[in-house]
């Protein structure tokens, strides 16, 4: 286990390097001139100021040098300053991170709250009415685009029934319930897909586990079915479910880009989307880096959890 951990972490480093290279290259390709953007409208014809700005930003140097300097600074936590607001990028991103993390966490809670029980029921009674309904929900939930669902929710709950405001974020400092309420529709629309695949995975892996011999043994011992399922079968059936959920973090972050935009939540996703439209290169680079590192960390954690939960896995 210790060696596996070490190997996984060593493996992490080259991937991080590639991630930084991609983030740097993509923003390098973006149309527009960072120096011009920094100067602002009024100084746009000032040649001297322009050259000075290029030197200040390091844009007059060869690209590999620019990359090395950028990476060196990034490693010390200096991701530059936002072109739009002038705030340090890392600070700006860290201020928005909690919103996205809360959204992601709420999505996972929803997926577990609905996906698990429904998946269990349909696995225990395959081809029953409950199974059919659950399967239809799962199939539909996996196909519905999250941002369209968000729009539908806004229409039904905010414009039609008027039970929630259409969009806008209430910070936690104004109370837990108002905060959760403002995040509920975004979490529901982003969470539909995850709930659906949680349901599906729970169903299929529980069906598989229930056919194994040790479950028959547990039944033969005369244990009640409830105990057999809850204490014996579920433990093993949930390992692949946890893996599936863990590997969806990237998808959730991606979905957050458009869902946060629709619901006007001040999270990482909306910052990323805005930074493109305001040509805020440092902010975009930063957001890409932070999200990719988040995804890598989530995947690593999932792998470790998996290795920990299933001792049969050998690490070669």
């Amino acid at each position, binding site marked *: 286990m210790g060696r596996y951990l070490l190997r996984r972490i060593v493996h992490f480093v*080259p*991937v991080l*390097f*590639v*991630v930084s*290279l*991609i983030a740097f290259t*993509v*923003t390098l*390709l*973006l*149309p527009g001139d960072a120096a011009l953007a920094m100067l602002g409208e009024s100084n746009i014809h000032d040649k001297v100021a322009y050259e000075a700005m290029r030197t200040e930003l390091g844009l007059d140097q060869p690209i590999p040098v620019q990359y090395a300097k950028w990476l060196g600074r990034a490693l010390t936590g200096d991701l530059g300053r936002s072109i739009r607001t002038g705030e340090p990028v890392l600070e700006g991103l860290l201020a928005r991170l909690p919103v996205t993390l809360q959204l992601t966490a709420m999505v996972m809670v929803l997926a577990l709250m609905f996906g698990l029980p429904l998946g269990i029921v349909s696995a225990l009674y*395959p081809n029953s009415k409950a199974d059919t309904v659950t*399967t239809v929900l799962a*199939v*539909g939930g*996996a*196909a*519905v*685009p999250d*941002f*369209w669902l968000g*729009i*539908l929710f*806004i*229409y039904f709950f905010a*414009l039609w029934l008027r039970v929630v405001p259409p969009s806008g974020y209430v910070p936690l400092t104004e109370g837990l319930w108002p905060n959760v309420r403002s995040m509920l529709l975004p979490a529901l629309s982003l969470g539909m897909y995850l709930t659906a695949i949680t349901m599906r995975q729970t169903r*299929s892996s529980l*069906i*598989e586990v229930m056919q194994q011999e040790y479950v028959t043994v547990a039944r033969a011992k005369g244990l009640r079915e409830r105990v057999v399922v809850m204490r014996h079968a579920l433990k093993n059936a949930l390992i692949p479910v946890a893996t599936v959920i863990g590997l969806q973090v*990237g*998808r*959730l*972050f*991606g*979905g957050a*880009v*458009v869902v946060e*935009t*629709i619901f006007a939540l001040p999270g990482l*996703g909306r910052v*990323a*989307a805005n930074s*493109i*439209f305001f040509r805020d290169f440092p902010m*975009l680079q930063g*957001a*890409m880096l932070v*999200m*990719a*590192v988040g*995804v*890598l960390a989530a*995947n690593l954690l999932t792998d470790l959890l998996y290795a920990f939960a299933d001792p049969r896995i050998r690490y070669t």
Partner: protein
Amino acid sequence: MTRKDAMTQFSGEIGSVQPRRIKDFLDRFLRSRGAGFGVAVLVVLLLTALTADVIAPYDPVQFQDADVLEQPSLRHLLGTDQLARDTLSRVIHGARVSVQAGVGAVGFALVIGVFIGLLAGYYGGWVDDALMRLVDGFYAFPLLLLALAIAYSLGPGLNNTLLAIGVGFTPHFARLARGQALSVREREFVSAARVTGAQPWRIMAYHIWPNVTAAIIVQASLLVGQAIITEAALSFLGLGVEPPTASWGSMLKVGYQYLDRSPVLSFAPGCAMFVTVLGFNFLGDGLRHALDPRLWQRGVA
């Protein structure tokens, strides 16, 4: 062992594209739930995209002799948008963009991804390490964010959009192809081919690729739906095809702005997208059931 022997011998294995008989394949495919629906959706979508000019009641970009944001009526079955264009005609023409985006993005990712995956899986060693770390790097970015950044760097237009989405999907195919190639390359028929002096590209094309195809086909059909959603998300955010071309995503963007006055503008393209993705998911599941022997044995579907 000739190539044909090898193919026969391994035809029952996971990843083989040749089930014993085409009939078996069709039987299994059609028995899986919803596969027929998936095929129907695919056919309708393709026909709609191909014949959009004929079946659309109005020109999708022409302002009609109607009010803006008109409600559905017999003359305009789904009403009109903010520029008095016929919504139904725009949904029909939007199918074109979606089909192109879906097929184009997945096609690009498939070609590049499978190539990378086969190289990595066949050669192993440092080639594998280098290629797969590159793939892992791309895989770490949320698809939509990566596609957004690439689409913006490349500029507007459908081709750039599907390229951006394709880059995001490439890791899926590369990982899949590599895994399959790794498991196949140690087989006797590959060694046999190597002993007879076959070139690596020949071994990859004739011996490894046929054993990878099934898994790739299933993955591709499942990703087309995702590509369509991603294209729509990009258009919704203002990238993607340029106005006035109708696409489901850009229609949703307008629909969202006028949600309180004309909800049908959001419902119509969204429903089209939902049914399309549903169809492709069913199609993919059906193909998986028909091609993956593990599922026949388990009897769960």
